């Protein structure tokens, strides 16, 4: 399968690159825990910063198959070490990148099993994914619009729909929305062989641009691809506005302070790269999870030769 991924990109003139997994700083995302080594370096949570530095130096379309590491992520769908396929397309809009991603899945279809409970999607399904906006999915799942709902209604909704959660009255708004999304909205996607979620609130933009959607809301220019409710890939129309990047980094660190997490230094090399980067779209795809869905399996340890304890 790795061989076929490489041939897919080679036929499209996307250059394979190799980047370090060992770095001096790590992603500032509040909800990502990096593994830190005893010499102070980090194992990267994603090859993104190095890929962007290559883009900034004019590498053009590139892809990498790289190990990524995330502390404390262990479960049926998570292993702390996993294989990430990440690629960048200068000049591409998100829709073009989505089309290419679906073409890749199509090219890998001969590895797919259709006899399982989760049969590999047909060509027709892969060509026409069901598209949801974050807001519509939340409205369908719990009847509230995440952009406009009042704090009181949000808390009442969590109290009645997630009865086993005790902090509905005290937790922050973004955490309650994440709770509703993972407990009620994502499960709706398990019925869809191929689904795309887009239009995330701007606070969840991470390193993507933001845009104003058709209803005048500020949303992140990103999408996530799901196969039977399992998140397979996450794509950004990449942020190249350095000032905006600094602002988000500072606000992530402010949140980290509040939560008692360690702050992270700004990756100045990445800032420089962002300044030189062409407009582009990029996507990260979890290869182990893709294999899970190709084989119709439900646990990540079933596709890893050596799973971490707890996975």
């Amino acid at each position: 399968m790795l061989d076929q991924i490489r041939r897919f990109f080679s036929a499209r003139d996307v250059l394979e690159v190799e980047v370090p997994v060992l770095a001096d700083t790590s992603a500032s995302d509040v909800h990502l825990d990096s593994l830190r080594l005893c010499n102070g370096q980090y194992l990267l949570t994603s090859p993104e910063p190095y890929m962007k530095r290559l883009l900034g130096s004019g590498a053009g379309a590139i892809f990498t198959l790289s190990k990524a590491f995330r502390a404390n992520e262990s479960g049926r769908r998570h292993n702390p070490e996993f294989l990430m396929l990440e690629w960048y397309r200068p000049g591409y809009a998100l829709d073009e990148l989505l089309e290419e991603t679906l073409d890749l899945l199509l090219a890998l279809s001969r590895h797919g099993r259709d006899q399982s409970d989760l049969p590999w999607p047909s060509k027709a399904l892969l060509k026409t994914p069901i598209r949801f906006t974050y807001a519509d999915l939340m409205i369908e799942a719990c009847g509230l619009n995440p952009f406009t709902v009042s704090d009181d209604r949000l808390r009442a909704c969590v109290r009645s729909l997630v009865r086993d959660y005790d902090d509905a009255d005290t937790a922050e708004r973004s955490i309650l929305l994440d709770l509703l999304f993972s407990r009620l909205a994502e499960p709706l996607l398990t019925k869809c062989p191929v689904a795309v979620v887009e239009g995330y609130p701007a606070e969840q933009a991470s390193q993507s641009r933001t845009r104003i959607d058709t209803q005048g809301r500020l949303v992140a220019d990103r999408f996530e691809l799901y196969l039977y409710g399992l998140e397979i890939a996450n794509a950004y129309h990449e942020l190249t506005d350095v000032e905006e990047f600094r602002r988000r980094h500072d606000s992530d660190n402010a949140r980290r302070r509040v939560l008692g997490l360690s702050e992270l230094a700004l990756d100045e090399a990445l800032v420089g790269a962002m300044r030189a980067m062409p407009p582009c779209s990029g996507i990260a795809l979890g290869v182990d999870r893709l294999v899970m869905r190709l084989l119709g399996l439900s646990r990540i340890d079933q596709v890893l030769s050596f799973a971490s304890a707890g996975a």
Partner: protein
Amino acid sequence: MATFSTNEFKSGLKIMLDGDPCSIIENEFVKPGKGQAFNRVRLRNLKTGRVVEKTFKSGESLEGADVIDLEMEYVYTDGEFYHFMLTDGSFEQHGADAAAVGDTKKWLKEQEIYMVTLYNGAPLSVTPPNFVDLQIVETDPGVKGDTAQGGTKPARLTTDAVVSVPLFVDQGDFIKVDTRSGAYVNRVKS
């Protein structure tokens, strides 16, 4: 007592929840794409035996419960407490009340080994071995020759437990009983 972060949750871990000691049965890690991760946990309340579900924000910590499981030998009852003795040669004894012994009362036999769960040093629950051998003190007379299939009849054991036994089994016989189902397994030599 130590505290445990959700990252350390695994089945069998004993933690305090709403003032009661609980044992984790299942721990599921869920994380939406870029958001907050949660742990959805199924726990057994060790006091009531009831199973509850709870959702925690990943990274939260809970206090550990001072709960240990020890193999102990049943010694005697004084009418109020059931006394168990450690099998490690220390002769240390603990008295369990009727609530802690619960349904295990009908499988209590002297010199048999039980799993006694201690909470803050006092017995919280007593788990019998999967099989115990007990004597029948009362049943209808045995029917000779009927050793194959056929009916069953109730038999009362020394512990007052009543189990269904095949017709050929006699008063005074020792039988092996599966304590999980309360079912007769076979006749054993005394």
